[in-house]
């Protein structure tokens, strides 16, 4: 299967920003909540007044898996580690992404976002332990 994400109308700004090495999420102008994955409505207050903004890009590892089988063309090398990261912006923001430096991984480990370009239009959400 192809591993390059196919953006939809809601997610295009998200993937486009990652291709440029930036991490953008939707911020609600109504209640201040952050949302992920991209969506056309705030799940907290149901406002559709959302702005693409840059969060801190930092968080803590909540859980992880070490993958010993390949299920898509990316990533190319085995094994690889996927970390589920709870963003500092909110307890309800859990984002899975490949951890680039998984040595010594543990719950609560601090990470920052490390976007990896995949194409001119799409980047991958990866994490880097700090």
């Amino acid at each position: 299967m192809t591993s390059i994400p196919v953006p939809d109308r809601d997610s295009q700004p998200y993937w486009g920003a990652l291709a440029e090495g930036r991490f953008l999420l939707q911020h609600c102008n109504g209640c201040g909540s952050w949302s992920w994955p991209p969506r056309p409505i705030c799940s907290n207050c149901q406002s559709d007044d959302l702005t693409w903004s840059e969060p801190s890009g930092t968080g803590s590892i909540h859980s992880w898996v070490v993958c010993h089988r390949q299920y898509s063309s990316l990533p190319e090398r085995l094994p690889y580690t996927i970390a589920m990261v709870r963003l500092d912006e909110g307890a309800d923001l859990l984002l899975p992404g490949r951890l680039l430096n998984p040595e010594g991984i543990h719950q609560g480990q601090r990470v920052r976002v490390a976007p990896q370009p995949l194409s001119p239009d799409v980047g991958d959400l990866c994490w880097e332990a700090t």
Partner: protein
Amino acid sequence: MPGASGFPRRAAAIAGIGSTEFSKDSGQSTFGLAARAIKAAVTDAGLQLTDVDGLATFGTGDSVPPNVLAQGLGIRSMNYYVDQYLGGSVGLSVVGSASLAVAAGVADCVVCYRALNGRSEQRLNGQGIKAKQPWDVQYKTSTGYVVPAQEMGMAARAHMERFGTTNEDFGRLAIMCRTHASDNERAMMRTPITMDDYLASPWISEPFRRLDCCLETDGAVALVIVNADRARDLPHRSVLLQGAAWGGGVSLYTSATDLSDSPAFPIADRLFRAAGLGPADLDFAELYDCFTYTLLSQIEGYGLAEPGGVPDMLRDGAFDRSTGQLPVNTHGGLLSEGYLHGFNHVYEAVQQIRGEAEHRQVERHDTALVAGQLGYISAYSSALVLAGA
């Protein structure tokens, strides 16, 4: 001769209507279109989005499904949903069935909707682009986060971190299921395994080894459902639907809860209220075990153990078929009998309740819990309480 008895007249009504503009290019997703029309209809009815506990739609893979929309709308408790595949021939059926659900008290407020970019996007045999991948797939493929073994493994790791659960605990579940399968002539894997076998099996998606994962199977299971009056006149002991629940409400992607919380918690509460019974009333349980951890998670989620309590109970043999206080997966489950998508669990429960399980027969066999897969994106699942007449 059973005949159609009609429809519960005057039992449900359309209380609000809403619409977007109609155009050749909406410039937005079907997700956005549906959200706008639903907000308008709910407002028209004088209600709030928080009043909505059901969504029903139809289409040909060209729209936003109810589970995605529910997350977007912030619906925390989905008690009724339909995503009927097909076109105009079934459009009014979702309105009819939503009316039945409301009349029966399954849900309080069901919104039926249809949203499509039939011109600018995909439409079956239409002018636009062809069908696309499910909504969530784009957020997983590049990361290589694509199979249930990874997503369930993520939850399993969180459980290990929180409760000190170990791979050996998962191994005891694998061994138990294999033991239950060992004298089951239907089972694909009947050779008993030891903890050494388990620990020697290779990593798939750490913390899962091969023996934490279920089988791949060709096969079929069929179930005939009739009403209770009719069933009473048939040869076997009736196996009644004492209670049933399906739906969800907690998203593992956007949830303040811990990944180690069982996704069964919200559905279990509704199931037992529907059945008028509790975990203590169960004689045995057949639980969806696509992985060892999901079996543990359901034992917790359906209240058969305290969170974190399963490992000690496993060491005491609490779920063993022959001597346990609550036998679980008496046939060997998906892990060792075969992968019939959980229908084999229903088959086994019926055999047990009838008293026809022969050498697998459990001593108390009147009331059973049968549960389906725990949803890992939106926590959508389904479960039954079956009871012998």
